C-alpha cells in the first residue's frame, strides 16, 4: 500500500528507536503526552511502546472526541430524539457511549428511537431532503477536524432552504484543552506529541502560546507509527537541549497557518461558547464553539430548546483522571472487570481511540492483572 507502508517500515522504526535509546539521557525521565486518541491508538496498535527505552513514558491525553463528550449531552440527545420524535444522525462511534443511568444512543435506538449512523454531515442533508415532513438533527462532535464539514453542511442547508435540518453542536477546541491540562499542572509533562489532523486545519502556529507559557516542547506528529517515533526523537532532542518550541514533523500535511478556507468557514458559522463541559476536564471557558445567531434556525439547541443536563459520572470510573493524564487505565478498579469494550462504563473504553480501549484491546499483555 503505497504512501502507507512507507510509514510503517519496521527496519526504519528499529533504526529510529536505536537513536532514541542513544540520545535519551538515562539519568532522567521523559513523560510525553500524546494529545490525540489517534496517537494512543497507533502507539498500542503498532506496539511502539515496546520499542522505547524504559525512561520514556507515554501519558495519554484527552484528544478523543467521543471520550470528552459529557454524559449530559448524550442524555440531552436521547431526550431530543425520544421526546420530539425526530431523526437523529450521528457518527457511529458515539452510539455506545454511556449516558447517565446506563443508557446510550444504541439502547435508545433499540427502544425505537430513530437514530441513524452516518459517515458525513452531508448524509444528514440527504436524509433531510428525503424526509421533508420530519425534523432531522445532526449530533455533531469532534475537534477542529470535524467542525468544518459541519459548517459546510449548515451552509448547504441554508443555500437550499432546507427547513427541517439542524445541528446539535458539540464541537470543541484543541488548544483550550491543552492549555487547561498544562495550567492545572496535575501531572508532569515534559513534551507533547501534537495533533496531526487537527493541525492540518488550525496550523502549527496555534500551539506557540502553549509552548511559550508553560515551557513545554511540542512536536506535531503524523498518525503513522514512523511519524510517532520520529516525533519522539525530536521531543527528546528538544528536552535535552532545554528547548520549548513548536516543531512540525507532519510537514507533508500541516502548514504554519493551517487551512485558511476551513478556518474562514468555521469562523463564519461558529462563535466561541463562553463555557462548555468536557468529560474529565470539567467546565472550561472558551473551549468549544456554538452556532452563530445568524444561523440559529439550524441550531438544534435553540430550535428544540434543549436544556443543559448534568449527568453524574460513573462511580469508581477514573476516566476523568485518565483524560487528564494523571492515571493509567489499568489503575482503575473497573478496568477489565466491570468495564470492558463489550460493556463500557467509562467513555475512554468506548472509542478505539480512547486510552482504556486501546490499553485493553492491544496492550493487555503488558499487564496481566486485567486479563479475564
Amino acid at each position: 500500500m503505497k504512501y502507507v507502508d512507507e510509514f510503517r517500515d519496521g527496519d526504519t522504526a528499529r533504526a529510529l528507536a536505536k537513536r532514541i535509546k542513544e540520545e535519551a539521557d538515562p539519568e532522567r525521565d521523559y513523560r510525553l503526552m500524546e494529545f490525540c486518541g489517534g496517537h494512543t491508538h497507533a502507539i498500542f496498535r503498532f506496539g511502539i511502546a515496546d520499542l522505547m527505552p524504559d525512561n520514556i513514558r507515554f501519558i495519554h491525553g484527552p484528544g478523543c472526541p467521543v471520550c470528552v463528550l459529557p454524559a449530559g449531552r448524550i442524555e440531552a440527545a436521547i431526550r431530543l430524539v425520544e421526546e420530539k420524535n425526530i431523526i437523529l444522525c450521528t457518527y457511529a462511534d458515539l452510539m455506545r457511549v454511556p449516558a447517565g443511568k446506563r443508557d446510550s444512543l444504541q439502547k435508545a435506538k433499540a427502544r425505537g428511537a430513530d437514530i441513524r449512523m452516518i459517515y458525513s454531515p452531508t448524509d444528514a442533508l440527504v436524509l433531510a431532503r428525503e424526509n421533508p415532513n420530519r425534523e432531522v438533527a445532526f449530533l455533531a462532535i469532534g475537534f477542529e477536524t470535524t467542525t468544518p464539514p459541519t459548517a459546510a453542511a449548515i451552509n448547504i442547508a441554508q443555500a437550499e432552504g432546507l427547513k427541517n435540518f439542524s445541528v446539535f453542536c458539540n464541537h470543541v477546541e484543541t488548544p483550550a484543552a491543552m492549555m487547561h491540562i498544562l495550567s492545572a499542572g496535575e501531572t508532569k509533562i515534559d513534551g507533547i506529541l501534537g495533533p496531526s489532523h487537527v493541525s492540518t486545519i488550525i496550523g502549527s502556529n496555534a500551539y506557540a502560546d502553549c509552548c511559550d507559557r508553560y515551557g513545554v516542547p511540542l512536536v506535531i506528529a503524523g498518525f503513522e507509527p514512523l511519524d510517532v517515533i520520529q516525533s519522539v526523537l525530536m521531543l527528546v532532542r528538544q528536552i535535552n537541549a532545554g528547548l520549548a518550541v513548536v516543531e512540525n514533523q507532519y510537514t507533508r500535511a500541516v502548514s504554519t497557518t493551517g487551512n485558511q478556507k476551513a478556518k474562514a468557514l468555521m469562523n463564519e458559522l461558529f462563535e466561541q461558547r463562553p463555557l462548555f463541559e468536557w468529560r474529565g476536564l470539567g467546565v472550561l471557558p472558551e473551549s468549544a464553539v456554538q452556532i452563530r445567531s445568524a444561523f440559529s434556525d439550524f441550531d438544534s439547541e435553540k430550535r428544540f430548546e434543549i436544556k443543559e443536563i448534568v449527568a453524574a459520572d460513573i462511580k469508581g470510573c477514573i476516566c476523568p483522571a485518565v483524560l487528564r493524564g494523571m492515571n493509567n487505565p489499568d489503575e482503575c478498579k473497573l478496568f477489565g472487570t466491570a468495564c470492558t469494550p463489550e460493556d463500557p462504563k467509562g467513555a475512554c473504553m468506548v472509542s478505539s481511540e480512547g486510552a482504556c480501549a486501546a490499553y485493553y484491546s492491544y496492550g493487555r499483555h503488558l499487564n496481566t492483572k486485567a486479563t479475564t
Partner: protein
Amino acid sequence: MSRLDIKHGVIEMGHGSGGRSSATLIDEIFVCHFDNEFLNQGNDQAAFNVPAGRMVISTDGHVITPLFFPGGDIGSLSVHGTINDVTMSGAKPLYLSASFILEEGFPLSELETIVISMAKASKDAGVPVVTGDTKVVERGKGDGVFITTTGIGVVPEGINISGDQAKPGDAIIVSGSIGDHGIAILSSREGLQFDTTIQSDSAALHKLVAEMVAVTPEVHCLRDPTRGGLATTLNELARQSHVGISLVETSIPIKAEVKGACELLGLDPLYIANEGKLVCIVAGEDAEQLLAVMRQHKLGQNAAIIGHVTEDQHHMVIMQTAFGGKRVVDWLAGEQLPRIC
C-alpha cells in the same frame, strides 16, 4: 394452476398460505431450479440412506444487507456458509435444507435470481437442497428475504477435528487473503458506496478440506473466520483449547485493496468477515506438508502459516507487529464501527 408472473410479480401473503399459490411458487421457483430427486418427490421431508460413521449437523441463518454484492448474493452465501460449517469438522457434506422467510412485496424476479444462484452453488458443490420451507411475512416485517440453511454430513473414520484440540507448538495456517467478503459487502452498502475491485470470497471449502484431511488426518482444529474475522476466530480457538496464540503480522495475507479500504474506513482487517477461508491448526511438524497440499488447491493457493500455538493461562492472542512491537489481538467488541477521525 395459473403461472407466476416472475418478471413483474411480487410476493403476496397468499404465497405463504399453504394453498394453491404456495404450491405454484414452490414449483416454479424452488423445485424447478433446485431440481433433484428428493425435492421432486414433493414430500415435507427428504428420506435418504446414510453411510456409517459420525454425522454432523449445522444450521445458519442469513440476514444480509445488501442481498446482492460483488462476488455473490444471499443465495450462494447461504449454501457456502452452511457447507463450510459442516466441513469444519472434517466432514463430507451430503445434504442441505433451506427455509425462506419472504417479505410481502419482494419482487419474484429477485427471488428467482437468488434461487438460481443458490441452485448453482449447490450443484457446483455437489450438495443438493433436498427439503425446504417457505413463509411470508407482512410488508415491513422482514428485510426482503431471510434464508436459513441446515446441512448434514458424515465424518470420515479416524478424523477428530474440534476447536479444543490446539496444543502448544502447533502451527496456524490460514487458507488465503482475509477481509475480502466484509469489504465487498461494505463497498455496496447504502451510504458507503465506494469503488473497489474486491469481490466476496464466498466459496464452499469442502473439497479443499477433503484434500487436507486425506494427507493429514491429524488436523487438530478447523474453523471458518466469518463474522468477527480472523481475530475473533483465533480468540475462540485459544479459549476453547486453553492455549495462547502468537501471530506474525507480516505473514498474514491481506490484499492491498482490502488494506486500503480498511485504512480509509478506520477498520482492522483482522476483524473483517470472510466466507471462503479457513483457519487450520495442525502439529508443527505436519504444517509444511499440509501447506503444500493446500496451495495446490484453487481455494488455498495463497495459504500461509501465520503463527503458532503457545502456552498461556490467559488464552491471549498476541501479534508480533510488522513494526517490531507486540500487541494483543482481542475479541471483536460489539460491532466494528468506522472511526470518526
